[in-house]
């Protein structure tokens, strides 16, 4: 049942990525919804599940452009690991903790992508981080909690946000 629910969530995320997400991009930067899926899987099931979910979702992105196969898997997997380790000893019911963790996870995922994309020109990596990773992480940290809060309210779940209870 959980697997089916997860498949539905991924389906909705893909629909979103093909419909409204491109329309809310600001200067090419949009929220990273796949990271949101990884984040809330870590909240529900722990770091190992999150890392493997990141790996599979990264493959889903990679099959569209095989030249980058593995890049998004590594980025999302590392983000899942970061969230899993970061949650240890922290109060997951705190909105502040959730937002900060989403920010760092999104930044780390985009940072991995930027580093791998800029390997041929290492000088451009800091600029890529400033241009894409930082604003993308900020945007993601704003949008994801709002979406998760809305979803938690619509589904009648406990806690202020998905998986926080």
């Amino acid at each position, binding site marked *: 049942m959980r697997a089916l629910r997860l498949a539905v969530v991924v389906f909705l995320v893909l629909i979103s990525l093909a419909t409204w997400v491109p329309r809310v991009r600001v200067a090419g930067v949009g929220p990273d919804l796949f990271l949101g899926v990884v984040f809330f899987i870590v909240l529900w099931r722990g770091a190992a599940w999150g890392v493997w979910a990141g790996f599979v979702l990264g493959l889903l992105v990679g099959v569209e452009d095989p030249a980058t196969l593995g890049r998004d898997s*590594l980025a999302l997997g590392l983000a899942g690991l970061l969230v899993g380790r970061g949650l240890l000893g922290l109060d997951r019911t705190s909105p502040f903790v959730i937002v900060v963790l989403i920010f760092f996870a999104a930044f780390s995922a985009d940072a991995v992508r930027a580093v791998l994309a800029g390997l041929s020109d290492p000088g451009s990596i800091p600029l890529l981080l400033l241009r894409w990773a930082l604003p993308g992480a900020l945007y993601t940290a704003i949008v994801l909690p709002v979406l998760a809060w809305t979803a938690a309210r619509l589904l009648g779940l406990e806690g202020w946000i998905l998986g926080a209870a």
Partner: protein
Amino acid sequence: MRSSQRPLSRRLRPWLVPGAALLLSLGLMLLPFSVKSGLATVLERSVFLPYRFAVGWGPRSLLAQHRAMMTLQERARGELTIDAALEATRESSRLRAMLGFRRRSETGLLPAVVVGLGRGRFGDLLVVEPADPALVAPGMVVITSDGLLGRVRLWDGGYARVECLTSLEMAVSVTNQRTSEGGILKWDPVRGGLAIGAIPSQSDWQLGDRVVTSGLGLTFPRGILVGWVRGHRVGRGSLLQSIEVRPAARAAQAQEVFLLRTTDTAWPTPAERSGTGFSAFFPPESVRFEAGAGQPPRAAARPEPEF
């Protein structure tokens, strides 16, 4: 000895499962492109098949149907302009015949419908379904009614993946249609736009100048509209500048695209080129263009064909 190993193994245990996933990701990245491509095809037709059909890769998906409807609407609008375009083509042919010009190459357009957008974070990638799959090959140039969009990077059964100009791997040899000065256009991921780098600062590039493909490099035919100059940047103390270009065609807005089939029918036949050396392999206008290092004499410049 055993007591010292147990704590270490316990400490490592939580890292093993996530570490395996990360190592697998690294391994995937190091694979050669052909293996990656095959793996992607297998995954797309097995594990991710439901998503492919549901979310926009498949022709029966809601998004594809919606795009098909929009395409029909666009086609209906386009037919209104076909008569005018035909008349212009006939006039062009008459003038060419009167002046003794030959077409450098003949191109055919293969229509295709956009059925999916890439979901990567850097760059744009489109998934298109061509009208006749048998005619598609990797490397084919892709245009819209607005201008150059990119080229076919991968051909997989009924779908082609189009690498757009806003992609890290793309580089296009372009020329300023007004001054015939050339350069290499690439996507600048830092600024998020197209730019022509390493242009001498005294070069004549003005706002609004049309930028078209130069035909050098043999990948893109000459004269396809790429965009318009929208600014320039000069580094501090540098003698070179970077020209920023506003793209004519945008991947996010593309609904129907055309794959360009090029056949160099006007080039010399084997009989014509026998024993005459270099000049026989290239038409005279091509030789003049090469000799001018991307800057043919202005007197020889004439309007480029547009798409």
